[in-house]
């Protein structure tokens, strides 16, 4: 009798937990990263599930934002993209600026920008409706998210620990994305898994 009660309690608890997670809209470090499908700047459809087994980086981008410029004009972001895609990481640049807002670009404009800046992400996801941004609660550009090969979110936050628009500050900064990827690839837990992202607010549609 007692064990039946215990069992049913467990079941009820489990059900409650499950339903709670099912309804929770929030993105949380340590939890499964929400699945998404999006179109890239070449018109290809990219979905998170197809990259199971690989590390995935999401980089929120707004080419007019001084904080994004800091990392592109200095070449810092391109260097990161080169370094980590070479190690098998899938790197998605995400543009969530709405039409008419700062940072909004057409696919052609973006491709021209990539060529001009020598940027080498795996793909640029075009998100003018802000769906992907809202799904991940992206707040700023640049905001960085790292997903591990099991689909778990392992880092969410700033690109580094110098929240300024000044390229001078890149040298000597601690890069959280590199740290997270290095640690996770070595099978270690990510030390700093959550920081306050800095930068310009993502220009969502009103």
């Amino acid at each position, binding site marked *: 009798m007692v064990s039946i009660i215990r069992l049913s309690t467990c079941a009820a608890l489990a059900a409650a937990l499950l339903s709670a997670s099912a309804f*929770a809209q*929030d*993105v*949380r*470090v*340590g939890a499964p990263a929400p699945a998404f499908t999006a179109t890239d700047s070449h018109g290809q459809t990219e979905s998170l599930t197809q990259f199971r087994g690989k590390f995935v980086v999401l980089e929120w981008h707004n080419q*007019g*934002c*001084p*904080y994004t410029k800091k990392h592109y004009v200095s070449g810092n972001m391109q260097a990161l993209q080169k370094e980590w895609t070479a190690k098998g990481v899938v790197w998605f640049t995400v543009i969530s600026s709405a039409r008419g*807002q*700062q940072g909004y670009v057409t696919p052609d404009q973006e491709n021209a920008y990539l060529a001009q800046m020598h940027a080498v992400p795996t793909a640029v996801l075009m998100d003018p409706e*802000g769906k992907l941004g*809202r799904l991940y*609660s992206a*707040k*700023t550009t640049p905001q960085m998210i790292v997903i591990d090969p099991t689909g778990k979110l392992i880092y*969410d936050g700033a690109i580094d620990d110098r*929240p*300024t*628009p*000044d390229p001078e500050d890149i040298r000597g900064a601690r890069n959280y994305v590199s740290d997270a990827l290095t640690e996770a690839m070595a099978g270690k837990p990510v030390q700093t898994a*959550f*920081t*306050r*992202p*800095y*930068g*310009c*607010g*993502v*220009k*969502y*549609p*009103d």
Partner: protein
Amino acid sequence: MRFFPTILVLPLSLVAGLPAHATTDSADAPHVHVQLVVPASSFNRGEGADAGLYFRIDPGWHVYWKNAGDAGEPPHIKWTLPDGIAAGPLEFPAPKRLPLGPLMDFGYENEVLFPFNFNVAQTAKPGWVLLHAKVDWLVCQASCIPGKAELEVTRGVSEHPRRAVLLSTDEAIFKRLGGRLPRPLPAGVQAVFQPTQQGFQLSINTGRKETEAAFFPADTEILDNPAPQTLEPAETGLVLDLKKDANLSANPTELKGVVELSGGRTYEIAAQPETALKAAVKNLKAALSAPSPAPTSAPSPGVNTAPISPAPAPTAPAAIAPSISTPPQPAPTPSSGLGLLRATGLAFLGGLLLNLMPCVFPVLFLKGLSLVNSGNEKRHELRTHGMVYTAGILVSFWALVAVLLSLKAAGAILGWGFQFQSPVFLALMAGLLFFFGLSLAGQFEIGLTITGAGGTLARKQGYTGSFFTGVLAVVVATPCTAPFMGAALGYALAQSAAVTFAVFTALALGLAAPYVALTLQPAWTRLLPKPGVWMDVLKQAVAVPIFATAIWLAWVLARAYGADMLLALLTSFLLLAIAGWFLGRWPTKRWATAIAAVILIGVVAASILAPRKLIASSRSVVSSEAQGAWEPWSAAAVTRYQSQGRPVLVDFTASWCLSCQVNERVALDQPSVQKAFQDSNVALLKADWTRGDDAITQTLASLGRSGVPAYALYVPGEAQPRLLPEALTPGIVIDAVTNLPKAATQSAAAASNPK
């Protein structure tokens, strides 16, 4: 001759030097004008100097608070300073919530001053010093523009301490914006939080019903910033529901930040986690620490549900508190969730404690003496005495409840301590205590002679005596109970009659408990010492706190009603002393008793009649004094000044409202406050509700108030007036009128400086 340059040239070059450094103390960048504000032209060694970093921002753009919210960055400043001079960190006024699509930022629009301090060491070299700063900031609308500038000012370091000349432009900015930093919570007010499923519940017991509240977290990663913050109604403060950041895994040990309440009141808080035990201790402490801080309005302003209204001056000390302590009033009243059980428990404890109050102790002491004397009486008689004493206390409290409830039903405006608004009550109380003190001190024996007064009845043998001791205990306890009971009664009065009744009953039982315990347990009476000379000595000693209480009441009267009232009161003290002398000198003579009785009746009559006259005259003095500043209120006058674009402050007051008087004396009529009014070109209107006035009543009702004091500040461009707190300090008022939006102050400045 060697010193000539330092003595003469310093001030000269100061004037000459001004245009030179004026060019670099500020910078104009896209959408902002940034400026170093250092009002003092020279520093004294070993002292600090106020300074600030000022931003004027284009409309629609904003700069950020220290926690910028979801995006953005606060301004930073890096100094290059000569040896011996150090600059403190920038301090941040309370920000605004700035929504940006689904995001929420915290920052400032129009203009903001970040104050900081220069510290000048004794070792600093006298002469000119260059203060150089690298400033960077982020200014955003929808898009963001980072900016930086190098700013510097030159100031003197004086060889010998002297008063610095203030540079008028810097001083003006500092005066206008320097006082906007959040204050620490007033003593006794506490902020606590409890984790909830979604986040946190933040509770602050400000002592009044809060209708607006916003919390700005100091930590960047604690809250879900855009989530609405839900204010739950609480009678004596606020309960704010906050949603936590989804990534927050462990609960914080404290919740730090700034809370902004209605009327622009901002406080720096560090809320502690609240456990059930802590909550209980907090409530008790709040209730016990009553005398210094003050429940401004035990029952809350009649904003909505509260059946009774603002309770202008719950207690005399409450009303006076603002004059002694600068921090704004709010009170240590138990927080919102004060349940019935807790309230009655608290009331009982409170009743117990009342026995130790200087006003009550002598009464209990008299009772104790009678116990010692009646040590031989039979047990059941003692017990009956105890019961009758309890009945006396209960009946008095119930009578009080009845009065309160019937007044409440009749829609009268009162709170606990309403009797203190009555100068008649204050005068009678002071007289009674003084007379009682004389008797205790040994001038005469109450019991032997006079008939009729409570004291005599209390000393009467038999049950009537016990009953009236109870009544006397309640009556003389009032001066001490008022502040203490604010908490429990604030709760009780806002509840149903049954609850009010229960709380008062618990209080009465608490007050009666020690004596009843003695009478029920004869074993304990044996512990009482034998009668002897010590009883007289002790009795005389007890006269001291009684006189002290009389002094306090005299001060309250003098404070509120002026020197004439004090003169009348002291005269009545003299008459009482003469009556006492007759009673003491010729204790058995009928004629002496008769003379004393006549004097007493005369004093009582004078106490009832004189205050009205005196108040009338003191009012006329005040109004003629203040004629220049205050005009009589009328709705038309408000409209007229509004149409001129001037801010208008309306003082809703009444001569019987003690806290109104105190507010006027300690705040509104202070020269510094009057100057602030002039500076901001505020039109001052006084709505006198002493005899009631339908137009005023209706205006008050439209403001959500049903009584005085009320202070409404009409700001140009705002449909609804801002309401100031019910207990004013000069700081609150100055803040309120210097806090006006740019348009208002500009037009004000234009109006006051027509050149």
